[in-house]
């Protein structure tokens, strides 16, 4: 039997990835608007951690993060300054984790199977989650920052630093969420998609998130100094503190974020079309 081919049915329309990205982002935002409790969770977790670390550990830890600070109230104030930027990063990681779960729910449900039989670009399907996550992160981070200010945190950033903060934070969110979107696409189940991003919740502890790295034993310190969250958190501290920031640290942080975003994007895209049993 030969593969006899008659005239093919012409297909006219060109792909419109940007329009599809807007459509899928709108869907993502609609999910968030309809289920605000999800945003509540990603705000609640860092706020609870903030309260815990300031009011339980802060009195003692404060003396370790700033020179000449006495334990107690002064320590708490010093420690609040130290970990408020960390909590903003924890907020972004919490959103990234929620994104992995949303993506895995899409992938394991039938909706992505449908989208894969339609001429919709993977970057639109997955990018909708990412853009939605950026919006959610900026909203949630503003809320967490507001709580920190209520507790007495006083950012000293000027206009330029605030703009740099928003830009850098958007880049950080793109990096974290493209990686967790990859985790969500690759996950065999929704449960595993909620577990793998835990690495991002853990890494700030193994860096300069909660205590200075020079207090750590050598092996841990070497790891802490060379993992992405340390320069990211130091950059945020520098910007929020009004500009006491080494250029090398900031560029290292930016390079990590760009690298992670590209890696996550490539991984998610490559895995999206993988046949699923």
């Amino acid at each position: 039997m030969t593969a006899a081919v008659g005239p093919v049915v012409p297909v006219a329309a060109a792909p419109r990835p940007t329009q599809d990205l807007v459509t899928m982002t709108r869907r993502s935002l609609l999910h968030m608007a309809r289920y605000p409790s999800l945003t509540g969770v990603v705000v609640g977790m860092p706020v609870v951690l903030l309260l815990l670390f300031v009011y339980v550990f802060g009195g003692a830890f404060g003396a370790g993060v700033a020179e000449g600070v006495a334990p107690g109230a002064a320590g708490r104030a010093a420690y609040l300054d130290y970990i408020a930027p960390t909590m903003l990063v924890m907020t972004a990681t919490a959103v990234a984790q929620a994104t992995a779960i949303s993506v895995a729910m899409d992938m394991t449900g039938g909706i992505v199977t449908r989208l894969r039989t339609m001429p919709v670009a993977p970057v639109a399907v997955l990018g909708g989650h990412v853009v939605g996550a950026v919006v959610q992160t900026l909203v949630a981070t503003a809320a967490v920052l507001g709580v920190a200010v209520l507790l007495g945190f006083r950012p000293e950033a000027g206009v330029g630093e605030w703009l740099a903060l928003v830009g850098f934070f958007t880049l950080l969110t793109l990096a974290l969420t493209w990686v967790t979107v990859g985790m969500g696409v690759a996950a065999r189940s929704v449960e595993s998609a909620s577990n793998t991003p835990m690495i991002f919740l853990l890494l700030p502890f193994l860096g300069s998130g909660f205590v200075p790295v020079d207090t750590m034993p050598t092996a841990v310190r070497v790891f802490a100094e060379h993992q992405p969250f340390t320069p990211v958190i130091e950059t945020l501290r520098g910007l929020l503190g009004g500009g006491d920031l080494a250029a090398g640290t900031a560029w290292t942080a930016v390079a990590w974020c760009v690298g992670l975003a590209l890696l996550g994007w490539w991984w998610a895209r490559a895995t999206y079309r993988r046949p699923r049993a």
Partner: protein
Amino acid sequence: MPATRPSGPDPTPAIEVVGLHKRYGDQIVLADLDLSVPVGSVTALLGPNGAGKTTTVSILSTLLPADGGTARVLGHDVAREPQAVRRLIGVTGQLSAVDPLLTVVENLRLMADLVHLPRAEGRRRAAGLVERFGLGDAARKPAQQLSGGMTRKLDLAMTLVGDPRVVFLDEPTTGLDPRARRDLWEQVRTLVGHGTTVLLTTQYLDEADQLADRVAVLHEGRLVAHDTPAGLKAAHDAGSLDDVFLALTAPGAPSGADSKEVA
């Protein structure tokens, strides 16, 4: 493109499968499958579990690469021109492919946006499908609150938003109650009345008998029969498709060798 062959009114079949192979590890799922589905017809793929029905649909709908052979939809090769194929097909799979968090109308409008209908046209078509599928009472409900039958209707309605030329239905009525099944059959008949080609897989022989112009029986990855329901019954001297099915797919029944003579 090559010139039209003189024989037949429409020389390009809606679906043309030649020598299709697929294996998962050591297990051969499709072994040299040939199948041709004319435009505007309903073909039922029938076969026991594991016969390769869903695999065939997955390959034709660009979800799964084949290991050998060719598959074309309206002349477009599914492996080389997947985007062209995706513009022409609609798929309702076994997994419910609706967004559970969006309402019925939002799900339909999502599809309208993704097939790039102008907004007003998208709204009109979504409203028309709500009406046609009797989803009016549920239109503002999140899809996760719908019954199984309603979800399946929404699923099929979403498939139809883009006005596909070829529709794949993978076990569309599995798990539905008799009334919901009959409703869905009506929808398929309406669809075919508008000139759409339908390839459906089913384990229900009465479904194939009711809906299909042609029945293709798969057994162990090969086509063992391809005929009209009446033709199959006559050829096997059987009163019902049940008897035909049991004769063709009995363990140890010759697979493949007799496909050419029956088809």
